[in-house]
């Protein structure tokens, strides 16, 4: 069983495997950067390095790396934007002034086409690449200067952000990203050119002319099945979408037919071996963003989204107002599941979600969880 890295509003916490028969299988062991806003952690499976993104607020966004599983940390470079054209006020699609400055590191992924290379997605919408484990970063200008970027807007924040980066298992130069709000985009040449691949999605929060515009799609989370990489799942602002034809098209799941309590939520996880099995954490859409009837549940489909099971064993069944953010649900290579919530609860499952055990219920608000081999 791998360790669990829990990124929270007040630090990075590590839960290690525990052999206690009665427990969750994890034991909180150590905190890093305690007191600081830890927005995201990433483990590079190639060299085992841990990356931690911090948002110091006053002092800006920072990035640290550990090459010894958290024993020591080194501050590395943070992606920064080039000089903004002089005298030109830029605005996003919703008319808000857009300053070229990194506001949040929202996604990190190994760039598997080259040893030591990394991808980093930010708010306000820039994708960056490092060739040297984060010592330096370069803005991916082909995407930043794409004319469609002017059609992107903020999701939960003022400006658009890249929150999902998927390196394709078929070809490491093929990378899909998802943007809130800017749809899904893919490169097949390691970032030289980009195509919007959100065709078939539907946005119900824009005027009729924009409903099917690929740039209007508020994708909350994008995942790809490793064994069947032509299958992608999306948790979208107004529903769940699935593609089984390598993103040539997307199909919306009909909520009325699936039996799920809601199709609103943020995270999605797909079984790496089975493209028809996926997990979600639903919430009442979208102004309230709390579990339906105060009952925290996970939903799972095992038939490609035709039907959903509601999984609640071990989860609070009343007065629970946990929201799970888009990076707050993780699936380990050996099949363990874990999620963390805004209430600071972390739950884990070793039976594919049939039952859940509490890892901790007194952590700070959880932004992200990820497994560390």
């Amino acid at each position, binding site marked *: 069983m791998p360790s669990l890295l829990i990124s929270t509003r007040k630090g990075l916490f590590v839960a290690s495997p525990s052999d206690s028969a009665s427990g969750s299988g994890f034991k909180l062991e150590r905190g890093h950067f305690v007191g600081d806003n830890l927005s995201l952690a990433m483990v590079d499976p190639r060299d085992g390095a841990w990356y931690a993104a911090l948002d110091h607020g006053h002092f*800006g966004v920072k990035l640290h790396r550990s090459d010894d599983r958290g024993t020591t940390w080194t*501050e590395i470079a943070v992606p920064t934007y080039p000089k903004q054209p002089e005298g030109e006020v830029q605005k996003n699609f919703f008319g808000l002034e857009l300053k*070229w400055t990194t506001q949040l590191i929202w996604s990190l992924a190994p760039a598997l086409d080259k040893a030591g290379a990394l991808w980093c997605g930010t708010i306000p919408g820039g994708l960056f690449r490092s060739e040297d484990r984060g010592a330096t970063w370069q803005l991916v200008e082909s995407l930043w200067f794409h004319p469609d970027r002017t059609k992107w807007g903020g999701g939960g924040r003022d400006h658009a952000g890249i929150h999902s980066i998927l390196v394709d298992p078929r070809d490491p130069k093929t990378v899909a990203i998802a943007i809130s709000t800017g749809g899904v985009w893919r490169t097949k040449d390691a970032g030289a050119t980009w195509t919007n691949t959100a065709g078939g999605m539907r946005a119900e929060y824009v005027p009729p002319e924009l409903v099917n515009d690929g740039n209007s799609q508020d994708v909350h989370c994008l995942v790809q099945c490793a064994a069947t990489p032509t299958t992608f799942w999306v948790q979208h602002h107004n529903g769940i979408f699935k593609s089984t034809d390598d993103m040539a098209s997307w199909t919306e799941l009909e909520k009325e037919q699936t039996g799920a309590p809601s199709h609103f939520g943020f995270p999605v996880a797909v079984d790496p071996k089975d493209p028809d099995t996926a997990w979600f954490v639903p919430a009442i859409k979208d102004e309230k963003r709390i579990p339906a009837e105060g009952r925290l549940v996970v939903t799972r489909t095992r038939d490609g989204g035709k039907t959903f099971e509601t999984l609640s064993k071990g989860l609070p069944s009343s007065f629970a107002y946990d929201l799970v953010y888009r990076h707050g649900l993780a699936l380990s290579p050996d099949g363990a599941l874990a999620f963390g919530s805004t209430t600071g609860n972390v739950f884990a499952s070793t039976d594919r979600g049939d039952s859940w055990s509490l890892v901790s219920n007194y952590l700070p608000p959880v932004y992200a969880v990820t497994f560390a081999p």
Partner: protein
Amino acid sequence: MATVVFTQNLRRHVECPTETVDGATVRAVLDVVFTANPRLRGYVLDDQGTLRHHMMVFIDGEPVSDRRNLSDPVRATSEVYVMQALSGGC
């Protein structure tokens, strides 16, 4: 030479002792400090070189008025304080 003092809260993240440096503007004074201590720059200024949204700079007790270009004049006897704004906390 002007004296430049950084908030204690910043010292938790990066070394930034009080320094005395030459310079006729806030930009000039801070550039001297950041040239010697490059990591400190990103904690005070954003990607565009403007003062971070929730940071404050005072010259002899007065907040600077030009947060973008940092052109406020600094005298040889000035004390420049780089502080956190109360906004942006939690």
